[in-house]
């Protein structure tokens, strides 16, 4: 047993050292360390909401690219939607002495004490995509999508789709996220405006279900919606994973031609689905721009320039016609991404 535990510890130390290596930092000590001391301007710590949704991976990759271009390192950790994990990660960033912290707050309120703690240690905090809503601690700048306008775009696409016929619509929601609440609010505003002036082609919202923003839960929610309302005409899903889950649900009951899906995000998987006609259209977000802009604001902040409190990147509608000419989607492009 003693031998076994020794072997285990040895294996663990290799695993840790090895993983450090693969990130290409810190481990080749000595020579590189001396160089690093001159070269690296500091480290930026990023705690993502979750890395199981590719959207945040794109933000992370673009932040890393932009940061390294300007001589900063980026550490990426994933809070997996747990606010305590995220608070612990912020604590570790402070111990490491990072230059700046970027968060996708797991909760718009409860992350406050962690932000205040970073402030107290003199580390500026930035958020992107998801916004911090509390009043404890200070966020220098938030970079996100114009979710409310994006929701309005989705609403306009829905009105265009169903004008003249009307029909029943289900919303696959993720109410915990403020960003998704804004999307649905914008969507409903346009749909309600249509209904007040419509003549017999009313769009009826028959169900608003929680799809968790994920494929499996979106599948279940859509399946329930179609069971309860067999004559459903369309679905609005607040992101691509739950939209694709809804599509699988429709295919499983052979209703994919009857029910049209409008989703949100414009992730690669979503764009492919739009090209293949599985989703009608997306108001797309630009996670690459969100990531790069976040790092730009950090650099500006260190450069002594004034940084705006909030930067919102507008969303655009993306149809099959856009997908057909999207260079990201031609065969080689996909191979490269995958």
């Amino acid at each position, binding site marked *: *047993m*003693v031998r*076994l*535990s020794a072997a*285990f*510890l040895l294996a*663990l*130390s290799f*695993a*840790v*050292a090895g*993983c*450090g290596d693969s*990130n290409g*930092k*810190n481990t080749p000590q000595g020579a590189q*360390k001396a160089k690093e*001391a001159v070269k690296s*301007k*500091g480290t930026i710590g990023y705690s993502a909401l979750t*890395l199981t949704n590719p959207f945040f991976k794109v933000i992370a990759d673009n932040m890393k690219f932009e940061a390294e271009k300007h001589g900063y390192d980026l*550490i990426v*950790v*994933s809070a997996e*939607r*747990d*606010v*305590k994990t995220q*608070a*612990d*990660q912020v*604590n*570790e960033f*402070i*111990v*490491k*002495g990072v*230059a700046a912290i970027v968060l996708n707050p*797991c*909760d*718009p*309120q*409860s*992350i*406050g*004490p*962690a932000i205040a703690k970073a402030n*107290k*240690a*003199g580390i*500026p905090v930035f958020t992107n995509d998801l916004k911090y809503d*509390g009043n404890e601690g200070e966020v220098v700048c938030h970079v996100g999508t114009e979710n409310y306008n994006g929701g309005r775009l989705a609403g306009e696409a829905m009105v265009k789709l169903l004008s003249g016929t009307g029909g029943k619509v289900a919303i696959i929601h993720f*109410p*915990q996220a403020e960003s998704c609440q804004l999307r649905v609010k914008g969507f409903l505003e346009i749909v309600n405006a249509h209904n007040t002036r419509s003549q017999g082609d009313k769009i009826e919202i028959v169900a608003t279900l929680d799809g968790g923003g994920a494929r499996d839960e979106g599948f279940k929610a859509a399946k329930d919606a179609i069971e309860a309302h067999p004559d459903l005409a369309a679905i609005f899903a607040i992101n691509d994973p739950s939209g694709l889950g809804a599509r699988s649900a429709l295919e499983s009951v052979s209703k994919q031609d009857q029910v049209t899906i409008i989703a949100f995000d414009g992730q690669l998987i979503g764009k492919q689905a739009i090209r293949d006609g599985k989703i009608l259209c997306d108001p797309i977000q630009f996670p690459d721009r969100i990531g790069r802009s976040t790092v730009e604001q950090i*650099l500006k*902040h*260190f*450069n*002594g*320039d004034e940084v705006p409190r909030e930067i919102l990147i507008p969303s655009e509608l993306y149809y099959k016609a856009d997908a057909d000419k999207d260079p990201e989607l031609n065969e080689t492009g996909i191979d490269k991404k995958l």
Partner: protein
Amino acid sequence: MSSNLRTQLINTPFIRDYGMIFVLLVLAGLFSVLTIKQQHPTGEAAGRQVADFIISRKGHQARVLIVTRNTGDDLAFAEGVATSLKHLGATVLDNVNGTASDAKRAIDVILASGGEIDAIAANDVTAKWPVYDRYPEVGSGKCIVPSSYAWPDFLKISNLLGVANQTAIYAMIAIGMTMVIITGGIDLSVGSLVALSSVCTAIMIRDGCGGVEAGIGVVIVAALAGVCICALAGAFNGFMITAFQVPPFIVTLSMMMMASGLSYRLSSGRSIPELPTSFFWVGRGRAAGIPNPILLMFFLYIVAHIVMSRTVFGRYVYAIGGNADAARLSGVPVKRILMWVYTICGALAGLGGIVLTSQLSAGDPKFGLMYELEVIAAVVVGGTSLMGGRGKIFGTLIGAFIIAVIKNGMNLKDVDPFNQKIVLGAVLMLAVLFDTLKRRNSRE
């Protein structure tokens, strides 16, 4: 002879029960070595050192700009530089305590009035700001910083306290889980009970006691009520298990779903931040420099250790796990003891919820996600057998710390989050393997 000696050593009670403490120490040593890094001091002594550097390099007539951030350590550093420089006869042009844009404004003012800057007294962070390079007549080459020294990130006091503080909640809940597992049961509902007590307490304070203005008395009552609700949920678990012989796995799985659903329902899925500052004392206050959750954790462990090793109740818990039928026939009140064990487990989960709410300053139905697995992992790594009848309370504390140290060490080493999960899974697997081997050893 020597192998005989080794067998004897392994079989001494201390090594058998607390052998994992050596694993913990080796892990701590390993991460100390792996996280050695150049540390950059700040504070008054570092400030005096920088003042000496400036005088020796730029002479006694040096005109110096001090740039620090607005934090306690940085202000002490700036103070140290300023008094030391004045004492040595140099000129302090300005003392900036803030952000890069504050530094920019100060430099603008100095240059506009025709002043010159010979040196910038900065620390490691402010010296890296690119703002100085905007001015050809300044440049970051003029920054003078304190000399650095090598020390592991892992062994910084702030990190060690941080690790203990992060673990405290899991470790508290793990006390109850250890008792449950020693009886041969399991409690999957603890994570949801964390959320339930958090939400219930926050709602009681918000709606019944005036929210932010609530007095300390009613806050304590609300917190106790939150713990009691969870204790009742635990008692209900115990009742279903003892009265109807429903397997603990199923009963607590149902409770996990019901409690989670209830907390989402009560809070409409949102967090509840309307809490008075007096409530934050439990989770964020300190006594003698040590965060309260750590002290609370140690207190609970000492009490639990005494209960489990020195009282009749503790003996009964082990007896039930060893062989419930034998225990019943020799007069152990099995049902009553099981009821108590599940009630205690629920109450401790509720207490964990209170501490977490206090730490994160809001009640939230999303709290406690997957905690049951974290806690069970701590118990198993700590050497408690899932088959029941064996295990030590302090073993669980060590188990919780082993997991926390591995997580912390990997984070400090920038190990990829996906790889971290693989490592943690492997650790759990090995812990169960140890348990099985130990069991076989002792049978032989």
